[in-house]
């Protein structure tokens, strides 16, 4: 039982460590390169940021399927804003900053709409956000006329690939290796969310609402407000992530960006040990889940696994990660 508990608690971490060690051993040459390790954190930074917000939503007993489409919508809007601000003579950095804020606001508003219908319309989150999955994508397509929206501000991409130099580290070419802004933001968001969840009154309410809504109501917690808040926060984080994605691509393909983000984010949350029934969960687990998914993708490429087979490998790894950490009584 002791053993079982440790697996339940740290199963995902264990899976990550095992895969990591396998990689270290089999890919001597290239795996431990600092760039590769940096990439492991940064490649899914956007999904990671979203997954952190999704963790809060899931702990509160909800779910959000619309985040992928919302990413496309906010990203499209973000790029349009950068272009607009820059063309109005603003400094590129200022334009980017404002666009980031704009993206966050638009995302937060979209999340608010989701949350409002869920909390006050009393409709299942799954359905509302299924509507959002269709709706937000549609808005993105309308914004971009079905195609790509391109940034006219080169500084945006510099931001996308910029970061702070990792100290004492040089790349093959002798240059410094940057820890990307996106990765940094992902780490900060995760720390912040962990803090909010575990240390603040709001975090406590999120858990209470997810664990038992009636109890929360009887404890004078405003359940509706809490729900509204988690979806709004998730929306804001989606907005933030979307601009980071847009910055890296210097554009947003309105039909393609964010496809399946919802599934990736939910998979990361669940792999991390947060129960879809709500009421409990952990942010660090989600971070581990994101890293695990990234590592798998990294390995699939490194070992040149045939694309047709990749889905199977991915599916099995997800399942295995969850299987080893299931509690004895756990079930949906």
């Amino acid at each position, binding site marked *: 039982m002791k053993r079982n508990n440790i697996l339940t608690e740290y199963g995902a971490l264990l899976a990550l460590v095992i895969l990591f060690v396998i990689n270290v051993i089999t890919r001597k040459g290239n795996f431990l390169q600092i760039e590769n390790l940096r990439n492991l954190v940064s490649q899914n930074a956007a999904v990671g940021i979203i997954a952190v917000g999704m963790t809060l939503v899931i702990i509160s007993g909800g779910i959000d399927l619309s985040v992928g489409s919302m990413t496309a919508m906010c990203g499209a809007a973000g790029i349009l804003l950068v272009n607009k601000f820059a063309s109005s003579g603003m400094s590129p950095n200022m334009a980017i900053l404002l666009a980031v804020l704009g993206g966050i606001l638009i995302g937060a508003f979209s999340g608010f709409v989701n949350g409002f219908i869920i909390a006050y319309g009393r409709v299942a989150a799954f359905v509302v956000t299924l509507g959002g999955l269709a709706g937000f994508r549609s808005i993105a397509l309308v914004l971009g006329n079905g195609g*790509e929206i391109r940034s006219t501000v080169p500084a945006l991409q510099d931001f996308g*690939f910029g970061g702070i130099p990792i100290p004492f580290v040089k790349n093959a070419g002798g240059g410094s290796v940057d820890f990307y802004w996106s990765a940094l933001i992902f780490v900060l968001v995760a720390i912040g969310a962990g803090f909010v969840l575990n240390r603040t009154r709001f975090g406590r309410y999120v858990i209470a609402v997810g664990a038992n809504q009636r109890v929360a109501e009887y404890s004078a917690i405003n359940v509706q407000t809490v729900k509204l808040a988690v979806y709004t926060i998730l929306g804001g984080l989606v907005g933030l992530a979307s601009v980071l994605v847009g910055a890296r*691509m210097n554009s947003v393909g*309105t039909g*393609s960006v964010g*496809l399946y983000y919802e599934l990736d984010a939910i998979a990361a949350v669940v792999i991390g040990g947060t129960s879809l029934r709500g009421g409990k969960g952990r942010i660090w687990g989600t971070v581990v889940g994101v890293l695990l998914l990234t590592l798998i993708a*990294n390995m699939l*490429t490194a070992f040149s696994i045939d*694309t047709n087979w990749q889905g199977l490998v991915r599916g099995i790894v997800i399942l295995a990660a969850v299987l080893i950490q299931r509690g004895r009584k756990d079930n949906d």
Partner: protein
Amino acid sequence: QGGGGGGTASGGGSSSVAAGGKRFKIGVSIPAADHGWTAGVKYWAEEAKKANPDVDWVIQDAKEPGEQISGLENLQTQGVDALVILATESAPLTPIAEKLHAAGILIVNVDRGFTKPAADVFIEGDNKAFGRKSAEFIVQKLGGKGKVAVLEGIPCTVNTDRVNAAKEVFKANPGIQIVAEDSGMWNREKAEKVMTNMLVANPQIDAVWASDDDMALGVESALKAAGRDKNTWILGGGGMKEVVKRVMDGDKMYPGNITYPPSMIAYGMQTAASMLKVGKDTAKKYTPGHVMIDVSLITPENAKNFYFPDSIY
């Protein structure tokens, strides 16, 4: 709005002559815009629609073959005179096309060919040639020796045709070594991630064969981020305007490209409209049943012929 008149006098629907005031209705069925090229298709379809205001156009898209079949059935019940179909997949759409063709609807098939003669006109983009020509270019540019990474697209016939044709060429040249292969899903972001991982695993990659320009741009980002943009170049495909511009400007990273114009949908629509106007049967006498759109290699020398700054793609 159709003017008054006609009515009972004109005979059955499908073999209609361009009688006075009769407006034709043409359905256009295309895959949903899930990457740049398909977005380009949508764009050109809208362009052709604008250019032909005398026809009632119904443009619809579909995420998968089943949805496309349903859409085509709906177009049929609305009494379209012609259908322009860019199939999500070739074989799955063949039976419905046959059925609609048998019902007397003029069928123009664009890009992905039906597996049976179900179309009156087939306007084809040659995906095998796409794969072959682009691979040959790489082989030639590398002097028959070098390390190549292969980026596939979304699994489907188009992708399979391109990739297999390209790999055949590479295989025929033993000096060429495919060091990495994965799918970038015709998606810039995905391609960037996959390329980043490839770069880590392979200290030397001379050229990247990316079966689509969306992916080419993602590859470029990855190369730049890894500081390896000096020694590796990319051959994408599709003739996206950004990439064509880079070829035109003599960018070392983009020594060439392969056309695969999404505007072929507009050509198909134009063909359908003009065929209906002169009368289907008359038009068929001199309209070729099979039009192969050349897949040409774009080089810095000829790039300006393929550069359309106003296009969305």
